[in-house]
């Protein structure tokens, strides 16, 4: 047991180290550096073209002119003390930038995980119950076709239709700027109002996965002997489905939900960009464009760590749900 635990911690640290190495070197392999940016992302943004002297000065200031391995060691050393470095673009500590934007991402990622799981399970159960009937076939074909639409395209369509055309939802942002809320209820409402379309987009992109998993697991589970046993006991169809079939079929769905959070943390970049939603996805895009090395590193680290945490949680939760896995 102690041995298991040690090797587990060791593997975790090794994974983390590999991620850190990639995080560090990947941004630096991109052409250019933070001070040679000449394009402005948004119309009206000031274009500053630095002279060579200025560039060298800043390179020296941020320590980017030193050999790579030295930079890496400094990065690692600072990381140990919890210092993620300073963002070149935002001119403030990377950790502050992330803390400012991470909650928004968490909101839409967690929200869409919950929503897509609930709807996916519901539709999957419906489909499994009507297996081999027309409704199941239509639903399945529709869902699979739907899953082929990329999430950013889906977001774009939703944005154009609901926000630009129908004007039902805001075009950008997470809250109304300069709003003066009369109470927490209104505040919450405003947040949900802005988060609605991003959450719907992310949920829809994950829905088919949950739906298919639920449907197929349920179909497998209903052929199991214990379902026959439950039927034999005369418990009634409803009890058989909910207490016996669904309870077992949900095990892989829970696992999937956990992994889904991790996957969405990465996928959220595009969706946030489409909705100009100020989560870490959007600032990651800015950081990449501006070659803001410390910020890129910081965000990638946060994403990687959250994926690791999700996997850990899935393991823990699964062993609670399935007594066969419990140690």
């Amino acid at each position, binding site marked *: 047991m102690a041995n298991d635990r040690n090797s587990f911690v060791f593997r975790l640290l090794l994974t983390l180290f590999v991620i850190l190495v990639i995080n560090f070197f990947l941004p630096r392999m991109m052409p250019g550096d933070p001070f040679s940016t000449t394009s402005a992302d948004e119309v009206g943004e000031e274009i500053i073209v630095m002279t060579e002297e200025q560039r060298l000065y800043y390179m020296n200031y941020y320590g980017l002119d030193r050999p790579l391995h030295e930079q890496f060691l400094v990065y690692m050393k600072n990381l140990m003390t919890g210092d993620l470095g300073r963002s070149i673009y935002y001119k403030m500590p990377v950790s502050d930038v992330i803390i400012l934007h991470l909650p928004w991402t968490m909101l839409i990622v967690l929200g869409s995980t919950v929503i897509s799981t609930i709807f996916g399970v519901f539709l999957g159960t419906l489909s499994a119950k009507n297996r081999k009937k027309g409704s199941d076939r239509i639903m399945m074909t529709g869902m699979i076709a739907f899953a082929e639409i990329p999430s950013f395209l889906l977001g774009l369509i939703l944005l154009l239709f609901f926000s630009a055309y129908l004007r039902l939802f805001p075009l950008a942002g997470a809250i109304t700027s300069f709003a003066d809320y009369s109470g927490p209820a209104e505040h919450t409402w405003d947040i949900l109002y802005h988060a609605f379309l991003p959450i719907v987009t992310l949920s829809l992109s994950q829905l088919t996965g949950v739906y298919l998993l639920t449907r197929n697991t349920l179909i497998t589970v209903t052929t*199991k*002997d*214990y379902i*026959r*046993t*439950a*039927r*034999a*006991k*005369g*418990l*009634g*169809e409803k*009890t058989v489905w909910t*207490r*016996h079939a669904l*309870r*077992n079929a949900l*095990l892989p769905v829970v696992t999937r939900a956990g992994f889904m959070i991790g996957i969405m943390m990465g996928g959220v970049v595009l969706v946030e960009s489409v909705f100009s939603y100020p989560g870490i996805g959007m600032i990651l895009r800015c950081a990449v464009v501006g070659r803001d090395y410390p910020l890129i590193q910081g965000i990638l680290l946060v994403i990687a760590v959250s994926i690791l945490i999700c996997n850990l949680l899935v393991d823990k939760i699964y062993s609670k*749900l*399935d*007594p*066969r896995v419990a140690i």
Partner: protein
Amino acid sequence: MSLLKVNNLKCHYQTDISTVKAVDGISFEIEEGEILGIVGESGSGKTTVALGIMGLLPENTAITGDIFYREQVISSLPESKMDRFRWKDIAIVFQNGLEVLNPVMKVGVQVTEPMRKHLDISPDKARSKCADLFRTVNLDPKWMDSYPHQLSGGMRQRVLLAMALSCDPKVLILDEVTSALDAFTRKEIRDLLVELQKKNGYTMLMISHDITFVSSVASRVFVMYSGRVVETGPVKDILVSPRHPYTRGLVHSTPDIFVYKDLWGIPGDFPAGDEFKGCPFSPRCTQKIEKCKEAPPDLIPIAGGRNIACHRGGVAGLLEAKNLSYRYRLPDRKYLKAVDNVDLEVGEGEVLAIVGQTGSGKSTLAHILANVMRPESGEVMFMDENVSKCNYGNRLNGVQIVFQDPFSSTSNRFTVLDAIKEPLDINKIGSKEDRLQMVKNALELVHLPGTGNFLSKYCGELSGGQRQRVALARAMVMQPKLLIADEITSALDVSTSANVLRLLKGLQNRRGFAMIYISHDLSMTLKIADRIAVMNHGKIVETGNSHDVMLSPSDEYTKRLVDSRIPV
């Protein structure tokens, strides 16, 4: 009024490509308090009957026929109405499997679940009743809070039993309850069932492939084969004298009944395809006739409360000897009665062993039966015709004999080919090419090479074991329906004789001919014989199935013979 009645039940599984007739028209009634057994090998449709009664067959099953419970038709009830009968009136103990209990629910909860549904009692009361049930099935109530995977196979089977008893059902269906259990647990479960039945008078339908288990509990038994009932009757009668060839095969391949015999299953498999019209057992049957291919036989009553479904009325007699006597004239002009008023019967596909010490008249009897010698009185009938008149030794599918000593029964100066071909030549069977092919086939049967090199060897060049196999091939080339093997291993060493004996029994099992195996070696005969006739001074002093003769000999001489085995 019977408690449960099944009338012409047919369950056909329909897939996209074919229809599997899992149950093809079976009917039975169970009286209140009765234990009825259904036996048959896997795939015979036993479990389908159980599921059919419970209304648990998959949707792609075409079900016809009626099932009555207390005179009420329950076979066509909608699910919700059927749920009222399930568990409360008819409960089933499933075969213990890893997934027969819900893996994520505590076993106690699974046992209380039906009580809460059907008996309308409080959770606490259900739980205390569950603890009682656990004690009834000899399981510590502390296990109520464990999950199925934490229990052993035997414990899970007890949980399944407790679960079935939870709502005090009137009819208990037991589906292969002991097949996955070890011998101890199997016995414990058996005793538990007997005790429960005595105390509470459950009506039981016991389904198993384990004929010994079923017969130790049930009073009547149904033998199923390929979805049909082939034989029914009181348990004891079926065990002692099975009448259907399938039942006989089943009984004979049960190690608990034939303790000493080697294991030989019934060769062959179920007929494939649903277009098969004849008797389903006919592809494996040793006594099939033309009619068996055309239509399945009906279940017809015979004496003793038994029913049998066979176009030939059950295992047919093959050879019958009546009042056989033979005397040798001794030099002092006295007569020695070598065979003294012997009556004998051999059924189709049966292995009868005749044992006795040297000089008891076994070989003389064998020679008379094979029509090598004529009896002084009495007659031998083979397939209802007199052996000596019809000369069954001279034709295919007749009677053949293999003698004791291969060195004198095969000539040194004959090549292997000539020795084996001889009966074909003499009796002018087949063309020259046919004969060569038949010889090669026969050699293949006895595991000898059929190459030119070996065929042109002289018998004198062969070893004892090879020569005895050549002698066997000579008998096999005539494709006998009855083979008489007269002390065929006595001239061979232990290992060679074991090989020859296994070969012979293997051939018999596969080809399905009947055999009279004559030997002085009781241990050997027990390994292969279905029935044993003990011979002493020209008389048959005892006949019976080999197990009974060995374990409980009734005749003084047999007892001596059994005791004469040298203990190691």
